[in-house]
């Protein structure tokens, strides 16, 4: 069964068209990435899925439950980590998690609350007031709140924005485990290396539309180009290689050239030409295309 089915969603804020005809199906068990620049419509889409915002037209369902007409079941199936660092200053961490459990109709949920706190390293903060926590700790509580009702679908809206490495590792270990146990994860993030490492499928949004949707591997393959950076110790770059140069820096002690190559077979030819030309290489780096390259190209309208 489809975890999240989004059909033809439109949403405008006065004259601003935030989403235009967005359709998307996220399958159960996926680790799905929703990427795009600021203002692309990611948070609006997440808010519509979560029932925080109402679409002008179109339909969203979570595990078959419509988020408007069958909102109770739809919300029970969904856990959302909001982007903003929000908290209720009247309560402790444990009280916050108990209240959140109660909102979802769960009584006596302390065993799971303890497990969630343990997995997010929140045990020693259980009785601390929310106001007294650092930003990173508050972020952990937000994640814990999204998980108190064991939702099969979890959406994280930029959960690692401005948090330290330790939390990122803790968070991704825990979320990874939940994904392996069958939970569907939807992630928005500006950290593309994070999305590349975690997500098996990615949608990219721009100006309220989905402009790319594919598996992470297939997206990266869309950009076949790699970059070869050469630092020359002696001699010059042969004229035959000049058309491949995408960047050069002649101000350094070793002249530095960045060349675009389509495949590794070209590497052998380039090295041969350098040898024939009597050019000596001081240093060499080969960088494969990654999600960031794909993202930039798609956002620039080159690789959609």
């Amino acid at each position, binding site marked *: 069964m489809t975890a999240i089915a989004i059909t033809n969603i439109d949403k405008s*804020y006065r004259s601003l068209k935030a989403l235009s005809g967005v359709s998307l199906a996220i399958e159960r068990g996926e680790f799905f990435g929703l990427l795009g620049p600021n203002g692309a419509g990611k948070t609006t889409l997440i*808010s519509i899925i*979560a*029932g*925080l*915002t*109402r679409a002008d037209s179109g339909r969203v369902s979570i595990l078959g439950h419509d988020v408007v007409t069958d*909102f*109770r*079941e739809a*919300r*029970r199936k*969904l856990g*959302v980590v*909001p982007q*903003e660092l*929000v*908290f*209720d*200053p*009247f*309560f402790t961490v444990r*009280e916050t998690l108990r*209240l*959140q*459990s*109660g*909102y*979802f*109709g*769960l*009584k006596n949920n302390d065993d799971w609350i303890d497990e969630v706190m343990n997995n997010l390293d929140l045990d020693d903060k259980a009785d601390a007031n929310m106001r007294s926590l650092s930003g990173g700790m508050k972020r952990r509580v937000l994640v814990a*709140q999204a998980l108190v009702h064991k939702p099969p679908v979890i959406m994280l809206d930029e959960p690692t924005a401005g948090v330290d490495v330790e939390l990122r590792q803790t968070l991704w270990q825990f979320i990874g485990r939940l994904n392996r146990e069958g939970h569907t994860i939807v992630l928005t993030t500006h950290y593309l290396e994070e999305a590349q490492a975690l997500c098996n499928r990615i949608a990219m949004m721009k100006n309220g539309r989905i402009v790319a949707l594919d598996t992470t591997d297939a997206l990266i393959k869309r950009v076949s180009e790699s970059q070869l950076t050469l630092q020359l110790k002696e001699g010059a770059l042969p004229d035959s290689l000049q058309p491949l140069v995408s960047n050069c820096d002649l101000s350094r002690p070793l002249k530095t050239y960045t060349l675009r190559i389509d495949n590794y077979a070209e590497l052998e030819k380039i090295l041969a030409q350098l040898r024939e030309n009597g050019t000596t290489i001081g240093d060499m780096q080969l960088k494969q295309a990654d999600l960031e390259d794909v993202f930039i190209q798609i956002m620039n309208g080159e690789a959609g």
Partner: protein
Amino acid sequence: MFSVSFRTLLSKEVLRFWKVAAQTIAAPVLSSVLYLLIFGHVLESHVEVFPGVSYIAFLVPGLVMMSVLQNSFANSSSSLIQSKINGSLVFVLLAPVSYWEFFGAYLLSAIARGLIVGAGVFVITAWFASLSFAAPWWILIFALLSAAILGAMGMIAGIWADKFDQLATFQNFLIMPATFLSGVFYSIHSLPAFWQTISHFNPFFYMVDGFRYGFFGQSDVNPWTSLTIVVLFFVFLARLTIRLLKSGYKLRH
């Protein structure tokens, strides 16, 4: 009978004011006692009230009702605006809580705070006056309905306001004048004819007058008239609040 979601939201709303009881309960009780001491002694011999009822005794139910009204309003309005501004309302909006449950929990917690403060004011101010309880059920009914009305008004204000100053406008230009001009400190029969007529358009007047009837068995207007107006006013506000919640006005954008 009531869902866990509803009971949790209600207990959270009650805990919210209970945890800061010095500010939400003790402070308004103290204010009312000061009103009694100052207005009671200054106006004791100047204000015309019901026959056989001292001004201080007349003032006590008025002050109790004023506390109920102001604190019921303050509870639901401040809870909503605070959670809207600090963003924590999202936790309720993400949960499977229906608009009926939302309405019920905020309304009941507002009633609870209004009645607790009102009871506190009564217990302390009753020391200063000899009170009768001519019709106790009327006391209870008017206290409950009035707290509910102001709880609903607080929800409407909290939903509508985007900033604290907007809420203050609602409170200072609507709730406060309507409360002070409702006959808390005087019988409207002591007013000039024009202001007596104006007072009859103030629903708060009927809340205070009906409540006072429960103590003295005397009122400016027939208590059944007051009850009818208060019930109708509550039904109107409750329907409006539920409509706002159902539509998601300023909550689900």
